[in-house]
């Protein structure tokens, strides 16, 4: 068996290092965890000092000007989910975004909501 520091990556493995370079190598974010469908919303209409943020952080912040979800942002910026999570947590620490778990997520989905979903699906 090759030793651990022997790297053998093929194209299929994807760009393993580069995305996480955006996060200075961090693979875990700070603060409370948040769901894939948690709502993200920018707290300020404009950024006082846009130069202080990395372009990727700015892109994520732009997308959060209207309420959106973690999954939607990750899809829009085309960065791996793990990286987007770290960027979002950074922005949260700076007080630039609010991340909240959708109400329905916080507890078991009630019957009223289930019926709404059912009716919504039937009407598609």
């Amino acid at each position, binding site marked *: 068996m090759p*030793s651990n520091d022997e790297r053998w990556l093929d194209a299929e493995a994807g760009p*393993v290092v580069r995305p996480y370079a955006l996060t200075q190598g961090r693979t875990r974010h700070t603060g409370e965890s948040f769901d894939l469908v948690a*709502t993200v919303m920018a707290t300020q209409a404009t950024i006082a000092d846009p130069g202080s943020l990395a372009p990727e952080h700015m892109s994520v912040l732009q997308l959060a000007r209207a309420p959106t979800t973690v999954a939607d942002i990750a899809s829009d910026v085309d960065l791996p989910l793990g990286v987007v999570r770290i960027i979002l947590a950074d922005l949260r620490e700076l007080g630039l975004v609010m991340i909240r778990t959708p109400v329905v997520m916080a507890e078991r989905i009630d019957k009223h909501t289930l019926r709404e979903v059912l009716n919504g699906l039937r009407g598609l």
Partner: protein
Amino acid sequence: MDYGVSDPAGGNPRSPGQHRAIKILLAGGFGVGKTTLVGAVSEIRPLRTEEPLTEGSLRTDSTAGVEGKTTTTVAMDFGRISLRSDLVLYLFGTPGQQRFWFMWDELAIGALGAVVLADTRRLADSFPAIDYFERREIPFIVALNCFDGARRYDPEDVRMALDLEPEMPIVQCDARSKESAKDVLIALVEHVLVTASEEPLSGIA
């Protein structure tokens, strides 16, 4: 995780601009039609992840020859269906292999339920997903994707083969058809409603 403001009465707690997101998981073996089904009923969006490999996934994932590989690329199918302006359904197609269970663990939190998409020619591919949802008591249904040329099986034979409870819905579908995909989701929500009626205990996170 539970820091969302919630109304214990389970009513309709929401403020303007707030939207409710419902997650449904779509699981099944490789090539069973998860992407097709998500695409048939919703606007499909790509979501990629490059997750650090956990100890657990290293044990189950064969990394022979790529021992230096410490992250894994997981492509997920993700679709959204706006049911109302404030109610959005998110469909997540998750890779079926056991090594991706770490992804499911997150997706499963707060999910309405799951659909296990199965191909009758390769029923065994759906075992891991069924085991997973049964063990975690996540409500699910089995949808048989009726591929062209595949022999149709009596759902009751499939029930026996998969060792499923008699009340577990098994539906046949054509993952390419919007109507059919819609019917699968409706069957799941109906199943969850029935299950919820049997267990009047609400408010369990």
